[in-house]
């Protein structure tokens, strides 16, 4: 990330939001809102003094999954690029009651600017790659597992923070009470493969659950129980890793737990062991819920902004599942990573590389090849009713001065607009009414002869 941040040809607009995308491939006009972070990024050196001295210290850290705390002026996580803090208005004493301003007084560069406002930036770009990622499934929705009710039921990402040497416990895996757990249950498929939440498989959970089990085994003497529906360890070296975990003594129980209940200071995981064909109750000190992946909360808005479609599960839709895995319905807009579907790091890196290459190819050529069959409007016949504008799956049509105009770079020639036009004002080249009628008449004639 650091080398990206320092690259002369790459400009990172962090803490920013794309508000509008106009134009078409090669000529996109993008309006970006750079949100006010109340710190002048040009003056700030990232020394961290403000963060150290900020008196509002008890704010649960989002990055640590609420296990650690942060201050009101903060850098979200250690490797964040750029290394410039942001002030969280809702928790900042200066913004809440006008008193404090400690950071402004202490900053050796005078970089704190409480008056800073959002900035609008207009960019002209040729291609766009959307990589907005995913949201973690909110485990508290599965109430029978008691996430948010019992202290020692944690999400997989929280355990991830516990095992991190720079995390809130400096890498010590401990219960809420500060003890090292003697036993731990890892519950797979929380929010995945479940028709109550998401039907799809989140794909990465089996492997990260195995990894977490391995790290727990490594750092503690805890017994680890993995409750799974199916182990999905497809991928290079993955099955071997699963076998290694079996040898390391992790207990695998085939069955989705029914519930987690507290009993005698422990958490009892109730499940049916499908391999044994009987009910089991496993008392443990910690329960880890392997949360699934979901589309980002704002995926719908992002899809609208960039002219993307979404599949039934809410992730962004690629142009073709096999032949166009990084292209989208919008020419010049590419997707990569978990915003397209849940996927692990190797797959994400591969897809991101493919998206970057596809975008480069397009820009290197400097021109785009259009479909020969695209819609054409007879302006004299067009009544401007706009039926076709609504029908077009590619938003390639728009009303201009009372008639419809075709964006030739966006049109794919499907002809849905033709099917909708009441005035016969729009046609698709090579599939005109005359051509289809002639073809139909010919077809009937040959059938007559036969």
């Amino acid at each position, binding site marked *: 990330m650091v080398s990206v941040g320092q690259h002369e040809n790459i400009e990172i607009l962090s803490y920013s939001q794309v508000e509008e995308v106009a134009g078409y491939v090669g000529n996109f006009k993008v309006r970006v809102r750079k949100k006010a972070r109340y710190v002048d990024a040009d003056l700030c050196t990232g020394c961290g003094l403000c963060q150290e001295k900020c008196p509002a210290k008890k704010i649960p850290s989002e990055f640590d999954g609420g296990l650690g705390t942060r201050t009101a002026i903060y850098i979200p996580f250690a490797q964040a690029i750029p290394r410039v803090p942001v002030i969280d208005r809702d928790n900042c004493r200066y913004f809440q009651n006008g008193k404090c301003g400690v950071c402004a007084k202490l900053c050796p560069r005078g970089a704190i600017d409480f008056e800073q406002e959002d900035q609008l930036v207009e960019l002209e770009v040729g291609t766009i790659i959307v990589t907005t990622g995913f949201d973690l499934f909110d485990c508290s929705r599965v109430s029978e597992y008691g996430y948010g009710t019992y202290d020692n039921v944690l999400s997989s990402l929280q355990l991830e923070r516990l095992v991190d040497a720079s995390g809130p416990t400096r890498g010590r895996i401990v219960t809420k009470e500060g003890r090292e757990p003697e036993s731990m249950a890892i519950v797979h498929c929380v929010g995945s493969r479940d028709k109550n939440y998401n039907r799809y498989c989140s794909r990465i959970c089996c492997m990260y659950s195995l990894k977490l089990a391995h790290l727990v085994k490594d750092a503690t003497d805890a017994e680890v129980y993995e409750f799974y529906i199916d182990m999905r360890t497809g991928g290079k070296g993955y099955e071997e890793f699963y076998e290694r975990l079996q040898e390391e003594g992790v207990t695998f129980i085939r069955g989705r737990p029914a519930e987690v209940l507290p009993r005698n200071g422990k958490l009892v995981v109730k499940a049916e062991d499908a391999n044994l064909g009987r009910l089991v109750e496993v008392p443990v000190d910690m329960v880890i819920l392997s949360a699934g992946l979901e589309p980002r909360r704002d995926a719908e808005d992002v899809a609208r902004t960039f002219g993307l479609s979404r599949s039934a599960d809410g992730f962004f839709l690629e142009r073709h599942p096999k032949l166009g895995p990084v292209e989208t319905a919008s020419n010049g807009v590419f997707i990569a990573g978990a915003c397209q579907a849940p996927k692990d790091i190797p797959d994400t890196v591969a897809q991101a590389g493919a998206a970057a290459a596809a975008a480069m190819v397009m820009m290197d050529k400097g021109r785009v090849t259009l479909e020969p069959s695209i819609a054409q409007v007879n302006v004299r016949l067009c009544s401007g009713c706009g039926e076709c504008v609504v029908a077009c799956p590619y938003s390639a049509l728009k009303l201009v001065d009372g008639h419809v105009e075709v964006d030739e770079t966006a049109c794919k020639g499907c002809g849905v607009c033709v*099917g909708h036009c009441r005035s016969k004002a729009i046609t698709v080249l090579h599939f005109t009414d005359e051509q289809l009628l002639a073809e139909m008449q010919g077809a009937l004639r040959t059938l007559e002869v036969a």
Partner: protein
Amino acid sequence: MPEPRIVAYACTYCSYPGADLAGISRIKYSPNVNIIRVLCSGRVSAELILRTLREGADGVLVLGCHYGDCHFINGNHRTAKRVAILERVLEYAGIEPERLRLEWVSASEGERFAQVVDEFTETIRQLPPMKQVLA
């Protein structure tokens, strides 16, 4: 009684390759159908369907991709709406709505294509020739 004449409109990305597959798999199907390729079943306008019947076709088959598979995102949804309305228009005009049928055939469903065509031909065979209706 003359053999029924049927025109099928098949979309480029699912149903037409489906028909191709039926062909290369040497699956037999009724010779009463002639296929016209369109880019998307959504292109098949109401007018095109009515004109086909007006020209004396005994049946019109519209073939598109299954829901969610449409190469053009949701063109087939538009087709489905249009055909549903058109069936009622046909009924109103005194033409058997069975003469128009919409089916989803994917590129891998060669067998299904043959089945659909055979079934539809049988249905049309039960109806009087369109020429008689038009006369």
